[in-house]
């Protein structure tokens, strides 16, 4: 998820100081990984260079280093384009999971054990996310659910693959 597009979106709401942008970014998008101030200002600098934001007139009470950033027409267009474009529904045809299973089988390693280890890791993460969901805000819960559904679909694939390991082994070692 691009930081610059997120900041553009926050600026599309209203002109803001770097400090406010960081606060809102951390609250809704940071997920426990606060955005360093340096990165906020570097990103805003790049956006200004590219003509997507400008530094607005200071308001009464603003300190000397408290610049207010305002989104430009070009910035707003870029943001709207991004917002209306669906995220690529990636088929993930060559996932790490898949590669590991096939390589394990080719090399005669214990692919089932690998799948079991992966299943345990997925379930562990799902337990953590479920805990977040049960104790957090609605924002946290919805994000956790997003992760849970993805992990769940991986797990279904793991179960299906585990059930077909013998056939898959025959196919990948046949050449």
């Amino acid at each position, binding site marked *: 998820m691009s930081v610059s597009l997120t900041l553009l979106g926050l600026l599309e709401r209203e002109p803001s100081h770097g400090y406010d942008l960081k606060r809102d970014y951390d609250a809704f998008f940071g997920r426990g990984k606060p955005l360093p101030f340096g990165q906020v200002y570097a990103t805003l600098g790049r956006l200004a260079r590219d003509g997507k934001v400008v530094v607005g007139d200071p308001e009464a009470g603003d300190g000397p280093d408290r610049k207010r950033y305002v989104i430009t027409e070009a910035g707003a267009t870029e943001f709207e384009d991004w917002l209306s474009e669906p995220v690529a529904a990636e088929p993930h045809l060559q996932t790490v999971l898949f590669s590991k299973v096939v390589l394990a089988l080719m090399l005669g390693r214990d692919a089932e054990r690998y799948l079991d280890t992966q299943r345990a890791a997925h379930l562990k993460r799902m*337990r953590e996310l479920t805990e977040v969901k049960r104790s957090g805000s609605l924002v946290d819960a919805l994000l956790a659910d997003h992760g849970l559904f993805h*992990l769940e679909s991986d797990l279904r694939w793991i179960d299906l693959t585990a059930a077909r390991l013998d056939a898959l082994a025959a196919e990948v070692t046949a050449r």
Partner: protein
Amino acid sequence: MTAPLLEARGVTLSFGETPALRGADLAVDAGEVLAVMGPSGSGKSTLLHCLAGILAPDGGEVHFDGRRIDRLGEQERSTLRRDSFGFVFQFGQLVPELSAEENVALPLLLGGARRADALARARAWFPKLGLDGLERRRSGELSGGQAQRVALARGLVAEPRVLFADEPTGALDSLTGEHVMDLLVDSARSQGTTVVLVTHEARIAAYADRETIVRDGRATSLTGRAAR
């Protein structure tokens, strides 16, 4: 590490020629919520029935609270189930002739409680589970999710040491299912009830502390018991 509250050791059981359990090992600590997962037909329900004293295994041992229970007679097992265990199943478990509150009170009534006391304790569960006002309904007049919460209250009303839940959300949509799981885990935790939860859904298993996978009648723990 202290001894587990409930343990199966090398449990075997066949239905005629069909071996359902082929040496299943499983241990549950007091207060733990354990998910039992695995493919359809792998033996999850059979294992749960052996742990709960519903079925007597052909071989192996089942221990509960320091006592071997797999060799008890039907009468003793029935007493054990009534006094120490609670149950929630997938569906078809409420008695249609009884009201919701009578259904919840049933384990207390069977345990010899006075009717007024049993009903009062049963009624206390309705607001906790968001079922206010449904006390007098018959099970045919409840939605699937409501009936499942009534069944959950019935499973927990006698404050069992262990709650056995076999696909308790299997007949519910995922949002309702998760709501029931939330209530199940919260209620079990608050009264210290140990839970053995059979499910093939990872999202449901994720409410547990730990999971065990049953395959071909054998159980594999992917994560060890927490050292206590």
